[in-house]
């Protein structure tokens, strides 16, 4: 049951987007966010929606999965939409009691919802199509110039790698400890919040002790395999190389941004 938790929410696949160089994908995700903040006019919004849906199709992951990521944001979405509807200036359309609704307000609300929607979809796209470990590797290579100003890029990426490697191991262990405690009569399912939280102590303490022991063992094993802790003089087994499709994607992104700027000057139906 506990093993069902997916972390990083990666959907393995073989689509065009899955196969992009992770470094390029990270850069593209950042640029796409910029693109979503450039768009202002209705025409530009329509264009962005079309592009986003096109990209979703390219990943071959159902749109439903992306929408699932929106669920936790539902409250914020509704809240910002309402604020926009009621607190925008302009010609009033409807007035009742202390509220006035303006055409400008409705437009702002719709645009805001669409923008958040597209932001969530595009950032999910990065984590859905890239395994966490590849993502970490890509990030390390992208940020490696920052090591020159003494940012611990290699250390960070090694920490991430080890954390990702041990998540399944520790989940399995949690399951084992839970079963062992249940066999001794521990009760995790009944009682109020405080009682249940207290019942977790007999799981967490053995889990922590074992995690520390594992960490110690792992550190020894890493030292034995000549790990010194510094990135200096290290080579990489996984090598990333840019393929034609990576260049095509970057050009496509540049075109998108240019198009967004141009479309901001186009008016559709007076908006």
């Amino acid at each position, binding site marked *: 049951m506990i093993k069902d938790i997916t972390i990083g929410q990666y959907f393995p696949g073989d689509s065009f987007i899955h196969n992009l160089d992770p470094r390029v994908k990270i850069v593209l995700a950042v640029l796409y966010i910029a693109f979503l903040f450039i768009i202002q006019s209705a025409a530009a919004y329509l264009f962005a929606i079309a592009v986003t849906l096109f990209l979703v199709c390219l990943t071959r992951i159902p749109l439903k999965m992306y929408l699932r990521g929106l669920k936790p944001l539902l409250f914020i979405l509704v809240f910002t939409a309402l604020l926009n509807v009621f607190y925008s200036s302009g010609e009033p359309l409807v007035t009742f009691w202390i509220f006035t609704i303006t055409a400008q307000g409705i437009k702002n609300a719709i645009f805001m919802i669409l923008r958040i929607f597209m932001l969530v979809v595009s950032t999910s796209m990065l984590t859905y199509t890239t395994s966490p*470990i590849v993502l970490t590797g890509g990030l390390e290579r992208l940020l490696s110039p920052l090591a020159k100003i003494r940012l611990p890029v290699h250390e960070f990426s090694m920490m991430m*790698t*080890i954390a*990702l*490697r041990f998540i*399944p*191991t520790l989940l399995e262990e949690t399951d084992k400890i839970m079963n062992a405690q249940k066999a001794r009569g521990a009760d995790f399912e009944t009682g109020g919040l405080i009682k249940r939280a207290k019942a977790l102590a007999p799981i967490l303490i053995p889990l922590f002790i074992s995690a520390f*022991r*594992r960490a110690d*063992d*792992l550190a*020894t*094993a*890493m*030292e*034995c*395999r*000549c*790990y*010194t802790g510094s990135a200096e*003089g*290290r*080579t*990489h*087994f*996984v*090598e990333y190389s840019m393929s034609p499709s990576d260049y095509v994607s970057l050009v496509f992104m540049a075109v998108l941004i240019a198009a967004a700027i141009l479309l901001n000057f186009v008016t559709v139906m007076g908006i």
Partner: protein
Amino acid sequence: MSAIIDIQNVSFRYNERDILKNISLTVEAGDFVAVLGHNGSGKSTLAKHLDAILVPSEGKVLIGGLDTSVDSNLEAIRRRTGMVFQNPDNQIIATVVEEDVAFALENLGVPREEMVKRVDEALDAVGMLEFKKHATTKLSGGQKQRIAIAGVIAMRPDVIVFDEPTAMLDPQGREDVINIAKKLNGQGITVIYITHYMEEAAQAKRVVVLNDGEILIDGTPHYVFQNAGLLKSVGLDVPQSTSLMFLLRSRGIKVPLAVLNEEECVSVLTDILHERTGNK
């Protein structure tokens, strides 16, 4: 042949307790030494001295002539000596098999083309080549241990120290590991194999028995297991076949004591039975 491991009067103290007491031991290059002992006999502590994870409180450990207590020798020593530990889960660093095997090579700064070649060779040597792209967490304990061995082989060490590599494995996994150790020894790698399974120790060229931080007995498996009484007195079990011979002897039946495996045992017993029925 020269001594690749030279342990000179080594003592190791931890929390006011003497874990190792004045141990001296030399191992020739190409040897296969099994180290036996019950829990707390100091056998794992001794293993950790061979890769400079621990340094002696007194005395000296030389690996290929290099003193483990000198910091500048560390890299050279760890390059020459590989270690395989007990818990397969706690020595795998990467999430993909081939990346884990490459870890030591990345640390040593081996160029990528060379790395790819060595990783494939190492995986082939442990029979795990087909698993090269698999996730490490999905493998069985025995398979994980073979990956850990491959990670060590890829470094091309002169010595491999196995620290109870089979303690957490099922019988099939145990057999795979000891067979790989024997195969590597056949290729000229010096093997130090720490275990508490007598059947595994019986397959070594030399057996060293530790008890309370001291060497109790040291010699060929035949020589060591002949002293079944001595081994039993310190709580160690001899291989079952040796144990049977021991009992037969105490009943006054003349059998050789050092019978190490089932085949030898069967042939000795049939010989005796033939002799007796022939007499009638």
